[in-house]
């Protein structure tokens, strides 16, 4: 169709559009992958060793040896803990009880306290998680089998599924989520509003093209470009960070298509409300991109948020999308694990589609002169 071809021409002629389309995804992958790391590297911790036996010495050595921690101070008594934290130099204190080794031999289990500096909740949970991991490893070597009924402090899920403890594993699904919103919702709304601003939409409406043909013609290119972007991101994730997609690629792509449809519908909806490109951009940012970034669990885990944000995030499509593609990409989950989220996302998509289609029609009629 001549009309779809024209839309592609628009896109490829506009350098800024091209940068948004292809430059930003690449840049984001690299920035988030390399710069914004939420995994630990050489976090300073202190050890208060009340036991001073073989076990505690061995554990301290293990903590020190791991690349995540640097044991920077050895404390003498509980009194020092408060002061050490206040200095702000350490992230956590690991406290071995006096009877550590004795209890282990006598009763087969023991408790080690980990106190973390929770001014940075994310780091704190990471530190405790990693420390627990190291303790668990050690207890596993004691008993000789890996998954025994030892009292384990539940390790963070990502450690389990992400044995290298790399944070960019987490970011790739988030980036896909954001990029797709940008390309689908933002670019479509801008593209349609642009035709409004230049007066070309009017001409299209007077032409024999039906309104749905105009809309499909406008959004189809962005649908394909969005998919293309997903593939670029996945390829980059693989070549730069060696991140494989564990689950079915077909399922992943299908979910992405659903999400893109949601974005496109949202874009159309915005375009029926505003008449200026700037407003289209602002609304997309305020309504979709910003909350999506902050509340979807992309950067900040939803579990750490106050309950109210949890509820707010439930109306945000990006949240559900992230919950769908994370397990697919990282855990290799199938549709059986994500059907509920998929259904919610599909419902939202349908709702937005119907709403935008109706709005678009109304807009055509109401223009009086």
């Amino acid at each position, binding site marked *: *169709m*001549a*009309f779809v*071809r*024209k839309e592609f*021409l*628009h896109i490829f*002629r*506009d350098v800024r559009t091209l940068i948004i389309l292809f430059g930003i995804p690449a840049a984001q992958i690299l920035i988030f992958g390399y710069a914004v790391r939420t995994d630990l590297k050489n976090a300073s911790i202190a050890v208060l060793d009340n036991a001073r036996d073989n076990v505690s010495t061995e554990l301290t050595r293990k903590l020190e040896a791991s690349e995540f921690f640097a044991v920077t101070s050895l404390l003498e008594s509980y009194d020092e803990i408060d002061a050490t934290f206040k200095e702000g130099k350490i992230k956590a204190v690991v406290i071995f009880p006096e009877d550590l080794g004795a209890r282990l031999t006598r009763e087969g289990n023991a408790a080690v306290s980990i106190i973390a500096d929770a001014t940075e909740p994310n780091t704190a949970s990471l530190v405790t998680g990693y420390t627990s991991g190291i303790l668990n490893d050690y207890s596993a070597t004691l008993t000789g089998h890996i998954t025994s009924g030892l009292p384990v402090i539940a390790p963070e899920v990502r450690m389990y599924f992400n044995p290298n403890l790399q944070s960019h594993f987490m970011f790739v699904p988030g980036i896909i989520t954001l990029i797709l919103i940008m390309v689908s919702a933002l670019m479509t709304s801008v593209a349609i509003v642009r035709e409004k601003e*230049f*007066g*070309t939409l*009017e*001409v*299209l*409406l*007077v*032409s*024999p*093209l*039906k309104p749905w043909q105009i809309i499909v013609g406008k959004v189809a290119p962005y649908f394909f470009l969005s998919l293309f972007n997903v593939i670029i991101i996945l390829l980059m994730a693989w070549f730069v960070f060696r991140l494989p997609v564990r689950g079915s690629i077909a399922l992943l792509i299908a979910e992405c298509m659903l999400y893109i449809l949601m974005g496109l519908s949202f874009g159309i909806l915005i375009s029926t409300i505003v008449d200026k490109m700037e407003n289209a951009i602002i609304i997309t940012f305020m309504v979709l991109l910003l909350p999506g970034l902050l509340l979807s669990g992309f950067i900040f885990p939803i579990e750490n948020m106050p309950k109210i944000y949890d509820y707010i995030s439930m109306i945000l499509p990006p949240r559900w999308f992230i919950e769908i593609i994370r397990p697919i990409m990282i855990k290799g989950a199938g549709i059986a694990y994500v059907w509920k989220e998929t259904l919610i996302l599909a419902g939202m998509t349908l709702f937005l589609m119907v709403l935008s289609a109706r709005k678009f029609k109304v807009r*055509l*009629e*109401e*223009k*009086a*002169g």
Partner: protein
Amino acid sequence: MEKEKVIEVKDLVKRFGAFMANDRLTFDVYRGEIFGFLGANGAGKTTAMRILCGLSRPTSGRVTVAGIDASRRPEEIKKRIGYMSQRFSLYEDLTVRENIELYGGIYGMSMKVIIPRREALLDRLSFTQYGDMLIHALPLGLRQKLAFAVAVFHDPEIVFLDEPTSGVDPVTRRQFWEMIYETASHGITVFVTTHYMDEAEYCDRIAIMSEGQIAAIDSPSALRKQYGTASVEELFVKIARPQKSKT
């Protein structure tokens, strides 16, 4: 001029809630004539034009455009008309040739038909050297000409021009009107709204709208005589702004 009616409007009413945008309009437009549609802003000319273009449905009354009922089959009307608005209807980031192809394609023409016609058109306008230039690189006057040529590219029966010359210099306007004459001489009816009263003088017939009604309709010279004014401008002021605003 043979008096074949190409637009027939009888008792057209368009209401938006309590507001009567078009109040029982009745007029005909004949094939091949240049019909000027005048009126102050808000007089209802855009509303009427949107109905004639199949964009909006009349509340009541009979509207026939190119033999097609506007309340029943507005989509059919769209195939037979051309349209050009006051804002440029061309895509600025496409070339001249691409714009023509796009519009040809939208009106269901195949590339086999489009390409020879396009080249013939470029030749006729002496535009061949601009063929592969982007629209935004063209001077305003040329864009205007091209926009009009594109609006009649698919050989419509009627072409609607919505204030096609606003913001254009007098020389370009003059050239533009030469194109309009040329088009009308080929039997394409030209329906034009304008703010420029001197342009109204170029029309075969004009209708002046005021407060949703047609206040006067005839050839410019007949109207001038009837109202005893020296120009259409004077006439317009007399008719379109009624002295008694309280009714």
